[in-house]
């Protein structure tokens, strides 16, 4: 992985921002703009996964949990905003006199909701990450545990139909912080906020990668013991990356709700979490743009092929995992470097340096 020159990556983000914020709203129809917004939500979560997994070596297979924290916070607020003073419709369905559950009440406030979208994932990921990383849980254990959490949360939401809407989820939002969601102009605004957030996340991650922290993170991924011997605590470095990635997943989830108009446990469970990983693996886990672009590509496949040709799409997704991980572990974004290396000298490029470190993790 050669480091991009500072102006190249910054210029890339600039071009990306212009494409998303200036070109797309003009060129695309309302329908496709909305879809693009949805892909942007997945891309925001993917940028975080790229940070935690690509740079930090933590395979986060349960980002659905944090996606859900943001999404359900937002959805609860929008539901209450739509319902006004009354109790949301789906709750009355089972019991006409059902009171509003206590944990819903604070989400009436817009300010509280925004704070919750940011603070909830930070607190949850902070506690979880602190406990796991300090006990040096890593590698496959970490991946399985996070995946188990996503399964557990999805099951919990499915089973609490009275409090969270269960499998049908939360939907039918009419207002978004006072704006009417049906208005096309407001839809463009929601899209623009999402796209701007994605660009912001890319900028933040770029800054992190170029900082001392980014160097430490990569070092902790490749040789955790050496980092420890040098006097740093890898747990803290990984914790920060994990919390930032959780925050990004939550933001992606929060914007997903007004754009798509529904959130269900299916969007946050094990399968959804794996879908988020798929995009990152496809695009290139350790690169700056790879995760975002990969997630958008997979998102496009999921929403177009996934609905018109679901059987085929699942096969494609499965093959994508197998082929990309087997032959192109650093994703599509590593192709240019590979070609360049092949042109310089005909022999194949050396095996990636992460291999040895990962082996250590599982064997230990």
């Amino acid at each position, binding site marked *: 992985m050669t480091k991009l020159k500072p102006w190249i990556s910054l210029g890339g983000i600039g071009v990306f921002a212009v494409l998303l914020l200036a070109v797309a709203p003009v060129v695309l129809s309302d329908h496709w703009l909305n879809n693009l917004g949805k892909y942007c939500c997945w891309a925001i979560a993917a940028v975080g996964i790229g940070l935690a997994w690509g740079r930090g*070596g933590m*395979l986060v297979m349960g980002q659905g949990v944090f996606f859900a924290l943001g999404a359900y916070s937002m959805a609860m607020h929008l539901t209450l905003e739509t319902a006004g003073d009354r109790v949301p419709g789906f709750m009355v369905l089972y019991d006409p006199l059902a009171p509003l559950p206590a944990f819903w009440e604070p989400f009436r406030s817009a300010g509280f909701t925004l704070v919750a979208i940011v603070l909830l994932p930070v607190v949850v990921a902070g506690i979880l990450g602190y*406990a*796991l990383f300090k*006990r*040096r*849980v*890593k*590698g*496959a*254990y970490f*991946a*399985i*545990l996070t*995946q*188990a*959490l996503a*399964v*557990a*949360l999805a*099951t*919990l939401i*499915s*089973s609490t139909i009275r409090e969270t809407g269960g499998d049908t989820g939360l939907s039918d939002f009419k207002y978004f912080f006072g704006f009417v969601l049906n208005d096309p102009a407001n839809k463009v605004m929601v899209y623009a906020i999402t796209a701007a957030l994605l660009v912001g996340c890319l900028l933040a991650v770029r800054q992190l990668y170029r900082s001392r922290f980014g160097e430490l993170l990569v070092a902790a991924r490749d040789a*955790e*013991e050496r980092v420890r011997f040098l006097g740093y605590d890898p747990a803290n470095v990984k914790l920060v990356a994990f919390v930032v990635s959780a925050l990004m997943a939550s933001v992606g989830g929060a914007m997903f709700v007004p754009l798509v108009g529904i959130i269900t446990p299916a969007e946050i469970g*094990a399968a959804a979490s*794996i879908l988020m*990983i798929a995009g990152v*693996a496809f695009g290139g886990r350790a690169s700056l743009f790879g995760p975002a672009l990969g997630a958008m590509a997979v998102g496009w496949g999921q929403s177009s092929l996934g609905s018109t040709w679901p*059987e085929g799409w*699942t*096969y494609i*997704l*499965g*093959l*994508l*995992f*197998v082929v990309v*991980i*087997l032959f192109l*572990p650093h994703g599509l974004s590593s192709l240019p470097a590979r070609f360049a290396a092949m042109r310089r000298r005909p022999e194949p490029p050396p*095996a990636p340096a*992460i*291999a*040895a470190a*990962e*082996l*250590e*993790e*599982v*064997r*230990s």
Partner: protein
Amino acid sequence: MDALIPQLLNGSAQGALLLLAALGLSLTFGQMGVINMAHGEFLMLGAFTAYLVQQVIAAGDLSIPVALPVAFAGAGLFGLLLEVTIIRWMYRRPLDTLLVTVGVSLILQQAALQIFPSQGVPVEKPGWLDGQLNVLGYGWPLRQVFTIALAAVCVTALSAWLKYTSFGRRIRATVHNRDLAETTGISTRSIDRLTFFVGSGLAGIAGVAASLIGGTNSQMGAQYIIPAFLVVAAGGIGQLKGTIIAAWAVGVALSCFAYWTTGSLAQVLAFILVIVFLQVRPQGLFTVRTRSLA
């Protein structure tokens, strides 16, 4: 107290099923360090094998005893195929193995969905599993007793095989020190293949047991894979006794939680219990002391 005995017995049967599912994993994950997310789909293959065998032998009393070895061989061959085509290239990248096998499991699930009816297939319970066993005034379904017996047989056979046969010794030698094993003339490549065959085959047996207790459909593998991994992790890597205790504990906990709350909430609670347990003992119940640093 009256409520406790059924929960204990039910839970033991659930634990036995989990143990069967985890047994193969503890071999491939514990001994080889390969994280096979398609293990659940091998289990599903075993369950569908039970159904297919019943189509051939017309659901007689013999169908399940016949299905067990067929499922073992069938799932084992699938595992062997996976090892030979994909996993052999991935031994140096364990975390990536996890993702590759996620892809394989997606493909197998979809294939099962298209080959078999989407609502699943019925596996008929043979007549000799219909009765109940009276334990302290509680009628314990024979199906559950059968699951426990099957798990006990598998565990005994596996540990005896690992301990006393020449194959078992070679597997253990390869696990402990691959280079040295190679030097003494053991073909570590064929040992890898053999281990993977047996591990996947055990998933097939678990599938037959699962088909007698729950539904047989394309999603069933996904249900078992995460709990099975948690059981292996909580039991400690490379330790059969840890896996056994962990599986039993999780089974009983699931059953008790389900009695006090609801089925899905019980799953959530059991997951959280295991996760909290792994905080306290990240290496699992029993650990093998190694000289590695971490």
